[in-house]
């Protein structure tokens, strides 16, 4: 088990640690070494908590020695997106404005990871306050895609996806507001799941858009995602939007991995114009495999998806303009211009001017405008109506089919710098992932091959109704197994050596 510790799935590592074939410390150390070795090129991490990780690993080893196994993932390392509060560890959300802030509390997700014995290696890079699709909007510099270091790893959770794809961690936590787990998964050849809204507590997740945000797993296998979702999911009384119901048995579904008799809908609106040929090709091939596995495939229409992007870019900025108001230099983080002469308004203003990047400012301004008296009904109000129509589209579709599928992203990973000055082009990256957030459904992206024209990973998105998360794993598990049979390995094995 020694040589390839970093290439093992989390499930395998967890079992090996429990069987004392390898210690949690050895596994943790192997990943810390890998980070030290490659992260200067990948830049997935903003902070590596070496001491904390090793101490946690030792604690797990001590428990294992006493026959205590906290969870199937006990002793397995994980990379945490820097948008989740972790007690005593710098939490920046990729922004200058939070520089130096060390939260005095743990997010619920972090609490649950610790309780399960998962080892948190550190905090991963992201677009500032999760606004972006490339991780280029991080105040701390971009993350690079391990498939091609000149390309973006997706965003906003590019750091988490890149950490997985570069074998710096077998597990990562991302957050998905409009695709920030799934789009990075698609362009890095990894697995990403956005759970049902309310399925994972948002307590301690620094809010971008409260009604859309959801934390979820980033992994290299479907089973690892299921194990991680089981650890972090479930009701939390500290988040009143959290669902008070048992978490669907995603691990059992990932084991069953069966699509026989399932009706699968292809969303007509999520293909065609704007979708790269190689992406469409790999997507169609994957759908054909599902058919071979015993699923019935039909085309369905969700006509209001065409308005999803517009609605999303009103709702998200509106909520974020309010959520980000608290970063005013008064209580924590950056403070600029406090020279004992300037007024409190001036200090707030100078702090925000210096602390926020251009994309954050753009969205705060859009949102402030959209919520203004006299414009509210035309913008925020209309967007909420579109949201309802999208929910209806989904409900109608799911009356006919069990799951919906689409390409996760219209294109493969683009080059760093290619779209950074064209916000609209950047926003279009999330066109296929946004409807799920607006409706509160859950979805998974998993790798289905490399696009012939550029040799870069392509992701397929599975979408299911709220609280039917287990269905994602039936489809994902079946498709992953079939592709592995076809290729003889997981797609991630083809990632170039760093």
């Amino acid at each position, binding site marked *: 088990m020694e040589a390839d510790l970093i290439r093992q799935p989390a499930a395998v590592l967890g079992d090996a640690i429990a069987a004392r074939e390898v210690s949690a410390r050895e596994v943790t150390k192997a990943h810390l070494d890998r980070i030290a070795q490659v992260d200067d090129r990948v830049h997935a991490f903003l902070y590596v908590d070496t001491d904390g990780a090793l101490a946690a690993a030792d604690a797990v080893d001590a428990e294992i020695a006493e026959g205590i196994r906290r969870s199937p993932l006990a002793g397995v390392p994980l990379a945490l997106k820097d948008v989740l509060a972790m007690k005593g560890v710098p939490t920046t959300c990729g922004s200058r404005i939070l520089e130096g802030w060390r*939260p005095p509390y743990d997010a619920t997700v972090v609490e649950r990871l610790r309780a399960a014995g998962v080892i948190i290696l550190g905090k991963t890079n992201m677009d500032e306050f999760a606004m972006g699709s490339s991780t280029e909007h991080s105040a701390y510099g971009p993350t690079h895609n391990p498939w091609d270091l000149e390309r973006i790893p997706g965003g906003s959770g590019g750091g988490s996806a890149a950490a997985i794809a570069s074998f710096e961690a077998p597990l990562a936590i991302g957050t998905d507001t409009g695709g920030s787990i799934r789009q990075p998964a698609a362009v890095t050849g990894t697995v990403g799941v956005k759970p049902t809204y309310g399925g994972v507590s948002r307590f301690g997740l620094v809010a971008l858009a409260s009604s859309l945000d959801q934390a979820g797993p980033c992994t290299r296998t479907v089973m690892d995602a299921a194990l991680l979702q089981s650890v972090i999911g479930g009701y939390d009384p500290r988040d009143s*939007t959290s669902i008070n119901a048992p978490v669907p048995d995603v691990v059992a579904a990932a084991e069953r991995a069966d699509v026989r008799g399932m009706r699968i809908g292809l969303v007509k609106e999520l293909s065609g114009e704007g979708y790269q040929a190689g992406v469409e090709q790999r997507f169609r091939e994957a759908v054909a495999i599902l058919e071979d596995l015993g699923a019935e495939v039909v085309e369905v229409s969700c006509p209001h998806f065409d308005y999803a992007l517009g609605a999303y870019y009103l709702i998200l900025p509106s909520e974020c303009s309010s959520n980000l108001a608290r970063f005013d230099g008064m209580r924590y983080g950056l403070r600029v211009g406090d020279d*004992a002469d300037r007024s409190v308004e001036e200090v707030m203003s100078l702090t925000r001017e210096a602390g926020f990047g251009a994309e954050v400012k753009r969205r705060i301004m859009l949102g402030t405008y959209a919520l203004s008296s006299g414009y509210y009904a035309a913008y925020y109000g209309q967007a909420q109506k579109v949201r309802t129509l999208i929910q209806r589209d989904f409900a109608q579709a799911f009356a006919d089919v069990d799951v919906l599928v689409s390409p996760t992203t219209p294109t493969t990973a683009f080059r760093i710098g290619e779209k950074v000055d064209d916000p609209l082009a950047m926003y279009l990256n999330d066109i296929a992932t946004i409807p799920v957030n607006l409706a509160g459904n859950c979805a998974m992206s998993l790798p289905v091959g490399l696009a012939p024209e550029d040799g870069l990973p392509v992701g397929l998105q599975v979408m299911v109704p709220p609280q039917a998360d287990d269905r994602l794993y039936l489809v994902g598990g079946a498709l992953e197994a079939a592709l592995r049979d076809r290729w003889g390995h997981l797609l991630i094995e083809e990632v170039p050596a760093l």
Partner: protein
Amino acid sequence: MSTVTPIPFDDAIATFDPVIGLEVHVELGTRTKMFCGCPTDFGAEPNTQVCPVCLGLPGSLPVANAKAIESIIRIGLALNCDIVEWCRMARKNYFYPDMPKDYQVSQYDEPICINGYLDVTVDTDEGPRVFRVDIERVHMEEDTGKLTHAGGATGRIHGADYSLVDYNRAGIPLVEIVTKPVVGTGALAPAVARAYVTELRDIMRGLGVSDVKMEEGSLRCDANVSLNRPGAEWGTRSETKNVNSLRSVERAVRSEIERQAAVLLAGDRVVQETRHLHEDTGVTTPGRSKEHAEDYRYFPEPDLVPIAPSREWVDELRATLPEQPSARRARLAQAWGISDFDMQALVHAGVLDLVEESVAAGVAPEAARKWWGGELTRVANERGVDVATLSVSHGDILRVEELIASGAINDKLARQVFEGVLAGEGAPDDVVTARGLAVVSDDGALLAAIDEALAAQPDVTEKIRSGKVQAAGAIVGAVMKSTRGQADAAKVRALLLERLGVSE
């Protein structure tokens, strides 16, 4: 801005009709804050009753306090409101350092209680008159932190050397009760305003949802006033903020009527603005102008789920409502055999609860009213304290009454007994003993005093002898004086007449 000389109230009312509106904020007495588990105790060290939630730390989330929602529904029901089946909290966005999140979680266009009313009674020359004050909405929100500005002349944030903020108060649940415009009150507008706030305070107290102490700010009132000529459109209103006593509510309305009338009669226009009442002079002065209304960019709070009180729950809460103050007053007035006017006097003196408690302790209603409404209120006013805080128990009153009934003391001595009790000299019997307070019942001693008085006033003595019995008062008074009040006046009178051989 030129200052105007207010015109007399009666002249103002002769020319203009006032329209008033009242917004009352009540701090709920829940054990914990609106959206977190922090305690709400008053007077703790600054920033000791805080947590990530009420400090608005990044990532923290609110969870609504079920007890606070229960309280507001009970308030709504007591104010005859409809409790909506579904509503949401909203964010009120503005930057201020006393707000940890730079938005306040409040309610906007979906308040939880709507369309209520409260009947209030005011005294007029023609007797008590009832006014119905319509209530537009009752909604809940979180309180802000508290700023203290150090240095600088104004005590405000601008010009201060530095400012300190205490977030202990941030997140304490507040209820805001807003009336519809109240019209047709005329000269009674100030009295109606006061009666409304008084009634509201009594209802809150009866519900046990707040300690409603205006002086500590747990009940605060904003009073809106506008004037119009009869039949004309309503005028521009001013809003006098944070009025903090019942008397001030009345004075704020009155003062605004006098001021606005002067402005209008001078041909000027009333400016829409907030004003502050000066407790010393009873006059309001302008605060910040509201000509440019701030845009709070309200939108539904996405971190909280909608509130949908089930009808069953609302009915359960309705069943827990105590008797309405007005119904209670009617019941007690009947039980005690007193008039509406006497009842109003007790209410105005703020001693109704005390009288009721004394009666429950066995004191005769008449006596309880006499002591609480008279002597004890007088002492409290003299000391400038709330009569309820006087250190006299209902048992003390009962004992004093027993002493009077047994003839051991009289009313006048009883006042001295209370004086002693209030001075901490012990129970009534201790005071009687220690001060040597006892009715002089020794006939010999009384007769000696009577003879002395008669000798001192021979002309009065003659009058009585000649049958002018009403002149006896002067001699009785002299005897009472010489015995330092320790005699029974009726007995002195009887002995006196017997001495002079005169009958009534």
